[in-house]
């Protein structure tokens, strides 16, 4: 039911969006470039100030540039500090159930405590 295949409805939506975006772009060009006097003489007086024809794209581009830096900063802020227990465990690991060990079966998946992992890695078995 949710396949990405092309369908007639999707073709119609796509074409409507294509026409709509071309119409919006031509309208923006008309608003930005044609002098106000000519538009007034046609009777079209209720336009936003032409200042916004330059301001809005600039706002958008600055927002995109700041977005890169903002995302970087948010990532750094949400990284757990070195002294937090979130680097060791979390709620799922604390509440996990210990499944019984069965012979000849693959052991169940579980979160191994960090002390055990350390012993396995760094203390050589004699």
């Amino acid at each position, binding site marked *: 039911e949710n396949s990405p295949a092309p369908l007639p409805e999707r073709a119609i939506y796509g074409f409507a969006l294509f026409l709509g975006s071309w119409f919006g772009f031509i309208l923006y060009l008309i608003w930005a470039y044609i002098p106000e006097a000519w538009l007034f003489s046609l009777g079209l007086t209720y336009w936003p100030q032409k200042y916004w024809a330059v301001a809005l794209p600039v706002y958008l581009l600055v927002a995109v540039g700041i977005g890169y830096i903002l995302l970087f900063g948010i990532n750094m802020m949400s990284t757990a500090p070195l*002294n937090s*227990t979130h680097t060791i465990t979390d709620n799922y690991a604390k509440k996990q159930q210990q499944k019984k060990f069965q012979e000849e079966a693959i052991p169940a998946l579980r979160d191994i405590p960090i002390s055990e992992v350390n012993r396995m890695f760094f203390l050589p078995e004699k």
Partner: protein
Amino acid sequence: MAEERRFRSASGAPIALRRRQHSASCRELAVRGPRLQLRSLSAATSAVWLAAYGLFALSENSMVLSAAILITLIGLIIYLHFVKIDQESLLVIGSLGIQVTSSYASGKESTTFIEMGRVKDVVINEAIHMQKVIYYLCILLQDPEDPQGVSEVVPLFQSSKPRLDCLIEVYKSCQEILEQRKTAPQSS
């Protein structure tokens, strides 16, 4: 008996690990970082004084020069007393606790003692720190009422940041002492 081995810190600076065994259940591990280099000190001082001289040339105000000298002196004192850690040491006493000491370049020492009842384990943990993944040694603390859970994590050797080979040495030494806890009779 004491032995000293050379290692590298995470940023490549040379550090030295000194291990001393005071008794069967007491060990001291000290990591010493490089001392303040003359070349970095002169570089910083020259940079500040050149900038001040440039400002003086622009503004003709001689207070800029005196201010630069004061800033350099006070900045150096603050750096030596609060920022530059020369040696970080770990003293593990089997039945008593763990003592962590940081010695600053000005001679100041700051000490923290954690009693053995609160120590769950000493482990090497990996975590993300400033766009890198680093290994660091840390003490896991437990609540006396809840011995299964980790209540707090105390990272060690934060300013000298030894690499994994040094950390493994420290880890093995600490584990030898901590293992004696299980075999020794518990006294609450």
